[in-house]
């Protein structure tokens, strides 16, 4: 049972960068009739999202966010001990994007840099890695760079995913400080459902091929994609999230010996409005405590948790504040965290 407790580590600042190119989802009608688009958009609650251009990678969004955060917070770059790049849309298959970013950011060569490759659950897992590293007396500052360009992953001709995803990158600094108090994590994995959200092609099990890149009609609804596009079995993802997420959240609250009401904000992975509304309702949460960015950024995969914090809690945080984070995605992989923020610096989201 992966229930973990840490103390004296916490998030001291978050900045985010999104592409300047806004997609108005009601007008995203190249492949589907307007009437159908309107219906889907209203149901999933995604009105706008951001698309990176062909020259912009997840790492570029993260780099801009990191430079902004370092400048605004006046961080001494030589004090950053660890750089974690968290993404499933890296620059290359090799080398690790984290190492490229170490150089681009001008961090010292002694930096511990590596990538964490998980889906929508990744931020909670990366945060746990950061807290665990910080527990070492010789490590004091960890920089998490979490970015995704999911607009490049899914087929625009597959209505199950075409209207959902947007791009974004965040920079999050984690520091050691007595004032943060105790934090709690619950992390889970179920590889028996690896087929539920997947990209078949482009890895070493099924390398990209000429045949694989041919678009095919894949179901009775006429959705079209190729083998290098991602796909989602929506009903099974819903079943998984509806069942496991509330259960895990309640388990973590009980481990932390906390009351549901003692949490100031619940930050869920922004999957879609149907899943998120169902989970919040199931848990009987006060909707004022459950901020959402689905309407303006859509589903930004693992970036959605930190992006929700930085865009919706800016100027709203009390000096001290307790958050419950909850994320779930491909793997299947899911986790929750209860963390305290203390004078956390949140930057205005920048556009690049």
């Amino acid at each position: 049972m992966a229930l973990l407790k840490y103390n004296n580590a916490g998030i001291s600042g978050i900045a985010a960068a999104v592409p300047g190119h806004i997609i108005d989802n009601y007008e995203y009608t190249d492949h589907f009739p307007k009437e159908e688009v309107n219906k889907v958009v209203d149901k999933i609650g995604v009105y706008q999202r951001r698309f990176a251009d062909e020259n912009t990678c997840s790492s570029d969004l993260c780099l801009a966010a990191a430079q902004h955060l370092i400048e605004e917070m006046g961080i001494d770059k030589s004090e950053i001990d660890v750089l974690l790049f968290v993404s499933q849309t890296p620059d290359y298959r090799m080398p690790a994007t984290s190492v490229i970013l170490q150089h681009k950011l001008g961090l010292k060569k002694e930096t511990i840099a590596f990538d964490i490759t998980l889906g929508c659950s990744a931020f909670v897992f990366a945060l746990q890695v950061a807290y665990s590293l910080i527990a070492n007396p010789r490590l004091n500052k960890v920089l998490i760079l979490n970015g995704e360009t999911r607009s490049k992953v899914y087929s625009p001709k597959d209505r199950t995913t075409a209207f959902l995803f947007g791009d974004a990158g965040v920079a999050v600094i984690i520091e050691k400080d007595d004032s943060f108090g105790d934090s709690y994590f619950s992390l889970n994995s179920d590889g028996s459902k690896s087929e539920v959200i997947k990209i078949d092609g482009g890895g070493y099990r099924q390398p990209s091929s000429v045949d694989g890149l041919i678009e095919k009609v894949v179901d009775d609804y006429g959705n079209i994609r190729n083998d290098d596009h991602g796909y989602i079995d929506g009903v099974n993802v819903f079943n998984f999230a509806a069942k496991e997420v509330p259960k895990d959240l309640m388990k973590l609250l009980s481990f932390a010996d906390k009351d549901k009401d003692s949490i100031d904000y619940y930050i869920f992975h922004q999957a879609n409005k149907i899943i998120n509304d169902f989970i919040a309702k199931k848990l009987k949460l006060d909707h004022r405590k459950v901020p959402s960015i689905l309407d303006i950024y859509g589903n930004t995969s693992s970036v959605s948790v930190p992006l929700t914090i930085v865009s919706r809690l800016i100027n709203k945080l009390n000096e001290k504040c307790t958050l419950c984070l909850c994320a779930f995605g491909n793997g299947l992989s899911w986790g929750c965290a209860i963390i305290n923020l203390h004078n956390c610096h949140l930057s205005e989201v920048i556009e690049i």
Partner: protein
Amino acid sequence: MELDTFINQFKSIFEVTPDDEFSGNTDFKALDEWDSLMALETIIMIDEVYEVELDGDDISNSTTIEDLFKIVKNRINGQ
């Protein structure tokens, strides 16, 4: 729990399909309005109204509204 009540509940999640298209024998996946999001709404409605959790297989294995009704009824009766 009666089939008529279930059909009315099921009907309520549709927006444009005319009422007279819904009966026990309706092949619900053949309705124009049906899509994968409607599958989610069906699961949510059944969870909220009947406190029964359906999964993707339950939907795939059902053809008519009465098929769904029978699954829900059997679960309520603990079968």
